[in-house]
């Protein structure tokens, strides 16, 4: 088991394995997103309060979910990198940050566009859910800026991993902000006590979108980790052999 794990996390094996895995994540993911978008926009009934405006959840909720998942991955990668000195772990964090930032931006932007007609405001300073999600965007920016500021990869890995771990507190706050404090944002629908507060024909497209976003995120992440691995291993023999090999190793 450990041997298998070690084999898997060895850079050359991961580099090759990821190339075969990426299409298996990307295509099912895109199919799910296509189905979820179509069903969410045209098949699911309108909401009894929000009318058609609620259809924004089909992109807002998955984006917010992925923004949190990416952060957790980044922090876990940093933690594993610090403790076990796994080469691949730091690469995961470095690869996850820009994607996490993109999905956090998407969650904030779609939430804002939803908020205008429904709540009556684009943005409310001081709302705990809105503020903690914005802080998450800045944590991603801080992580990337820190990495960019330190030339030596090993030092950049350590410093950014510590930042990522410290910021985990914010992930907890994002999730519980609507429970602990008064917020304009409604409470959780899917993780509600007694099951999701949603009709089945509204729920299935949403679940498809969440799974689709997750798979597409996985594909993008795997792609970025490959690049990270290639760069970090640029002076090793396997990269040299890979590049000098007849077909190359793109």
């Amino acid at each position, binding site marked *: 088991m450990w041997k298998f794990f070690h084999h898997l996390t060895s850079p050359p094996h991961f580099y090759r394995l990821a190339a075969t895995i990426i299409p298996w994540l990307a295509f099912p993911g895109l199919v799910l997103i296509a189905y979820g978008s179509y069903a969410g926009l045209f098949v699911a009934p309108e909401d009894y309060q929000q009318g058609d405006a609620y259809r924004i959840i089909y992109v807002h909720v998955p984006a917010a979910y992925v923004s949190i998942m990416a952060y957790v991955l980044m922090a876990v990668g940093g933690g594993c990198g610090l403790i076990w000195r796994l080469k691949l772990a730091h690469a995961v964090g470095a690869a996850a940050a820009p994607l996490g930032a993109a999905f956090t931006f998407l969650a904030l932007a779609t939430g804002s566009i939803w908020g205008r007609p429904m709540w009556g405001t684009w943005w409310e300073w001081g709302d705990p859910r809105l503020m903690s999600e914005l802080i998450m965007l800045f944590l991603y920016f801080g992580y990337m800026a820190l990495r960019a500021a330190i030339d030596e990869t090993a030092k950049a890995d350590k410093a950014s991993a510590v930042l990522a771990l410290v910021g985990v507190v914010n992930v907890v706050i994002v999730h519980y902000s609507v429970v602990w404090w008064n917020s304009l944002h409604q409470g959780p629908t899917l993780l509600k006590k007694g099951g999701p507060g949603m009709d089945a024909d509204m729920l299935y497209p949403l679940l498809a979108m969440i799974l689709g976003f997750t798979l597409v995120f996985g594909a993008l992440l795997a*792609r970025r980790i490959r690049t990270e691995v290639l760069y970090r291993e640029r002076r090793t023999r396997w990269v040299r052999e890979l590049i000098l090999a007849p077909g190359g190793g*793109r």
Partner: protein
Amino acid sequence: MEALGMGGYGAYVWSCYGLTLIVLVLSNWQARARHKRVYRDIEVRIKALEDRQ
């Protein structure tokens, strides 16, 4: 046509889906471009070393 109007919320709903498409396409494009750049840089360096030997 009526379905596209989204009961008066068309501008809000469609801009969200448009934004999602843009973010996904840009993320993919950026990942691809970065990989190409990194690969080419390493290729150039390794080929140069090969030629010197």
